[in-house]
């Protein structure tokens, strides 16, 4: 079969040439890396993103100020009848144990898919309590005043399918298989304690695809999250301190709002209109009065027509309060689910925020946006939930132990 032999040989020769080219390219790259980068970086294994871990134990739970991972799942659970303080303790002991194991890249205790635990990929598991946990555990007197559904807003079109919940799991990792496995194990752990109320999955750019520190983009194409506070500098925006008492030290709150984006009507808006709606440029994320993303917007600057460059209706003007206490940490994720029959898209944002006090920080801003925000034309809140995030598990503790026992 000479024909076969020829083609096989030419394939091999071609392959060798390609391989040679690749080797050359790699060699060239290695020289560049050696000249410009830390040798340790050049030696990083190609599965470094999968091996990376986040510490589980500490005064505060992980997954809040952790640099956002690429993928997230939010799972709201409802308590079964008869759930009491003893049940909460038992559930949190189980969840603490398995979360710690999984975040370290090891299987859960009764894990039936052990191999799926081998890629921690910066996995974090964050636990939150709705009001009913406090009631069921006999802790109603310890529940913060803000732990209740957000006030009704005019823009809301809330659906039961994405609203409320007695417990929440926020599971984030730089690998979606890792997220899936962790959610599966943790929900199985809880099956005699809870039922699943809703699950929301979200994503950002995958690890290694954008320079670190890049602000995420939402599916409307906007740079989203430029104004996030530096919680390291201003911890009180997010974390309760010792002043809150030992039960609450290291705690925070989580708001999960599902914001549907009508990308099909957004398509009808040209680029100039899109930028005016937000008050930022689409390419750089810079305010319309600046040139770089983190330039401070000049809300008083006027254009040639005498009108403010950043309009009265612009999102960044409306989202900003004179009161600097009215800020919070955004940690949202895009969603892009299957559209309903006859529709083109079903996209939006799992808008997740952390703040020390929902009423003092989140609600005032949401009221401003409810009153006026041009983006409301294309965005609709369809889900809403508020959770208390207890302090982290220090050595020997389960998550939430100090809330129960302090």
């Amino acid at each position, binding site marked *: 079969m000479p024909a076969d032999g020829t083609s096989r040989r030419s394939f091999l020769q071609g392959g060798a040439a390609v391989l040679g080219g690749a080797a050359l390219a790699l060699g060239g790259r290695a020289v560049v890396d050696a000249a410009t980068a830390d040798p340790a970086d050049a030696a990083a294994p190609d599965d470094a993103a999968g091996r990376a871990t986040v510490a589980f134990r500490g005064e505060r739970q992980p997954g809040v100020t952790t640099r956002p991972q690429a993928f997230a799942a939010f799972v709201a659970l409802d308590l079964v009848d008869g759930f009491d303080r003893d049940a909460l*303790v038992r559930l949190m002991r189980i969840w603490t*144990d398995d979360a*710690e194991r999984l975040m370290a890249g090891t299987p859960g*205790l*009764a894990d039936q898919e052990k191999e799926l635990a081998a890629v921690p990929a910066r996995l974090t598991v964050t636990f939150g309590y709705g009001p009913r946990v406090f009631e069921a555990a006999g802790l109603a007197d310890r529940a913060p005043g803000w732990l209740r559904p957000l006030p009704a807003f005019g823009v809301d079109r809330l659906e039961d399918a994405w609203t409320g919940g007695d417990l929440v799991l926020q599971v984030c990792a730089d690998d979606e298989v890792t997220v899936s496995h962790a959610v599966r194990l943790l929900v199985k*752990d809880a*099956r005699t304690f809870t039922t699943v109320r809703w699950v929301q999955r979200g994503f950002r750019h995958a690890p290694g695809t954008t320079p670190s520190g890049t602000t995420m983009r939402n599916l409307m194409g906007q740079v989203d999250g430029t104004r996030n506070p530096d919680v390291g500098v201003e911890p009180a925006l997010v974390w309760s301190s010792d002043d809150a008492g030992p039960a609450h030290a290291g705690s925070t709150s989580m708001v999960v709002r599902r914001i549907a984006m009508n990308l099909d009507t957004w398509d009808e808006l040209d680029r100039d209109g899109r930028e005016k709606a937000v008050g930022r440029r689409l390419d750089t994320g810079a305010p319309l009065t600046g040139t770089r993303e983190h330039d401070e917007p000049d809300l008083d600057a006027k254009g040639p027509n005498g009108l403010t460059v950043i309009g009265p209706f612009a999102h960044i003007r409306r989202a900003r309060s004179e009161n600097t206490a009215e800020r919070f940490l955004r940690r949202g994720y895009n969603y892009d689910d299957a559209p309903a029959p006859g529709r083109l898209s079903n996209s939006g944002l799992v808008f997740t925020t952390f703040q020390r006090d929902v009423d003092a920080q989140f609600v005032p801003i949401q009221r401003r946006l409810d009153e006026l925000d041009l983006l409301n034309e294309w965005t609709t809140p369809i889900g809403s939930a508020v959770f208390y995030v207890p302090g982290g598990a220090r050595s020997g503790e*389960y998550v939430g132990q100090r809330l129960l026992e302090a």
Partner: protein
Amino acid sequence: MNTQHTPARTSAVRRSAAAVAALGLVATLAACGADADAATGGDEAASLSIADTWVKATDEGMTAAFGVVTNDSDEDVTIVSATTDASPTAELHTMTMGDDGSMTMVEKDGGFVVPSGGTLAFEPGGDHIMIMGVTEPILPGDDVEVTLTLDDGSTLDFAAAGRTYTGANETYGEDDTEHAGHDMGDMDMSTDGATDAGDDH
């Protein structure tokens, strides 16, 4: 709203379990050293440790406990029996293949050898610590105390953490008619049929 309800066994277990790094990640004899009866008789137990210990939660009847035993000594060590505070009866079981190729569990004659410098895994579908006659529920998240006795009379105590688990539905061999038709744990064998763990992999 019930803040008082704490089963007697639970509270007793919680106290002792606190020493086990709260969560039983690794229970070694050293960690359990505060327990008065951690090691009695000979000293073989001093060379053993056990990690990842758990028990399949159940309301009543039979269940099983699991974990990985490590032998750090230069001598093989034999585990000859098991007891637990969760039930009057515990046995050491292994899996055996029947004539039809299905796996059934039988009591392990002579106990289990933990090889020198090696490990013995008690796991669903394999060797396990069978717990029979449970009358007080073993709840997920509670611990039960298990004691393994070695051939020199020394003992290895550990807390096994209750976990909801729908596997580990091993069936008994036909010679063990006393237990035939029962499964480990509280799962729905009546509707599920006899699941032979590890039968076709």
